[in-house]
């Protein structure tokens, strides 16, 4: 394995995880407590949308996470390609399923919001469609991770695709917006805007920070998992090359 010698001190990172995770967990819990209180109990129902406006406090933060995690992945992809830093590989790999989950959550809450507002589960609205395409790209990234066996090679190939996607996402967004105005539907969606009331803005901000800290916590833990996974893989190979009775273990447990 060529990548082994320049493994940038994983022990240091594991120590960081051990120190940071209790803190971020606590912050996440506190933020969720305040955010959920504001979103569910304290904030008034919208004069037009009624109680369904409360779905916004999940939907908008999820949408923000969907984009934010893609930015995190793209930065890590850059690190993978330029510096070949295995930690960047781990950052990339562990962010992908989390990004997929948040994008999925964004789509589902959007759908649950759309049913009472528009009378249908799905609208080919520009915003929803863009998020849907982003979801497809996330799924492609996760699939690409799964099919390439060698972790270093997988990281570099996924990094290329992630960056190609990063270039494409603004183009897709622009195209979908254009396409949507071309097929102007009777959508009366007027979410947000500058006139959003303070009583709605505050829970939105708190929920957004809760989601962000939740991601940071889970991401740190998932990066630790990736470091351990590489270690398991390396030890399996070591054991196998030493000719010990490790062969059944390697076959039983895919080294990925």
């Amino acid at each position, binding site marked *: 394995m060529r990548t082994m010698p320049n493994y940038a001190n994983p022990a240091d990172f594991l120590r960081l995880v051990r120190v940071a995770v209790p803190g971020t967990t606590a912050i996440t819990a506190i933020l969720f407590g305040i955010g959920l209180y504001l979103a569910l109990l304290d904030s008034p129902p919208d004069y037009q949308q009624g109680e369904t406006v409360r779905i916004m406090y999940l939907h908008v933060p999820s949408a923000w996470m969907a984009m934010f995690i893609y930015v995190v992945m793209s930065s890590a992809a850059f690190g993978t390609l330029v510096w070949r830093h295995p930690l960047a590989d781990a950052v990339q790999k562990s962010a992908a399923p989390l990004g997929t989950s948040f994008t999925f959550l964004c789509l589902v809450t959007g759908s649950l919001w759309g049913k009472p507002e528009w009378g249908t589960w799905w609208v080919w609205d520009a915003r929803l469609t863009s998020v849907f395409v982003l979801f497809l790209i996330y799924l492609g990234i996760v699939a690409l991770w799964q099919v*390439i066996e060698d972790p270093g*090679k997988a990281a*570099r190939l996924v990094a*290329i*695709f992630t960056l190609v996607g990063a270039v*494409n996402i603004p183009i897709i967004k622009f195209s*979908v917006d*254009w396409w949507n105005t071309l097929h102007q539907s009777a959508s009366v969606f007027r979410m947000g805007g500058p006139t959003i009331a303070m009583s709605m803005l505050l829970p939105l901000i708190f929920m957004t920070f809760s989601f962000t800290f939740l991601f940071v916590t889970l991401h740190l833990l998932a990066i630790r998992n990736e470091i351990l996974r590489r270690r398991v893989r390396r030890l399996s190979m070591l054991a196998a090359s030493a000719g010990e009775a490790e062969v059944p273990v390697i076959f039983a447990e895919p080294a990925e």
Partner: protein
Amino acid sequence: MKQNGAPLPSPLGALLVRDLKIGRRIGGAASMGVLFFLCLVAITPFAVGPDLALLARIGPAILWIAALLATLLGLDRLFQADAEDGSLDLFLMSDTPLELIVLVKCLAHWLLTGLPLVIASPFFGLMLGLDARALEGVAASLLVGTPALTLIGAIGAALTVSLRRGGLLLAILILPLAIPILIFGVAAASGAMAFLTPFLVLCGLTLAALALTPFAAALALRNGAE
């Protein structure tokens, strides 16, 4: 293409000739693309009904989707055959920039699958009851848009070159990225509004793909072949 008369440097010219020869042989996918295109166009009326007015309305969209799928069909073999017989290793070691090799391979692939689709599209359009203006629009938009499909697909082909069954994954990776081309291609083809605006955007997308994808695909090949 004779080498002395060719504007290309000779290794690239030789590669183009070789790829065209391979593609035209029985094992090549050249004629398959058009046949697949024809089949897709032919089964659509069975799905939506023989109503010619409806078919004429959605005809440009059908032709574009068929072209998209037919282009993707042959793409997974773009670099895989070379990887199997060892030519890819020679490409990687050669003095000729890999980016240009990718570009030439895309050109050969487009000449063999994209161009026949463009030529065939007006005839298939007639089967869907398109009028003369729509036929022109479809042919023109496909002429400009299919190179972009081939180029973007080449990135997917380069990423999946080392996988034994990369075909489906290639489609999963590439189809979301092809959405802008599809949107502007169909808009230009159907002529719902001004033809020129979407057509020019489509040209822009193709030029951007031409400028960027060889680098991404070459990078993927270098990393995937190690």
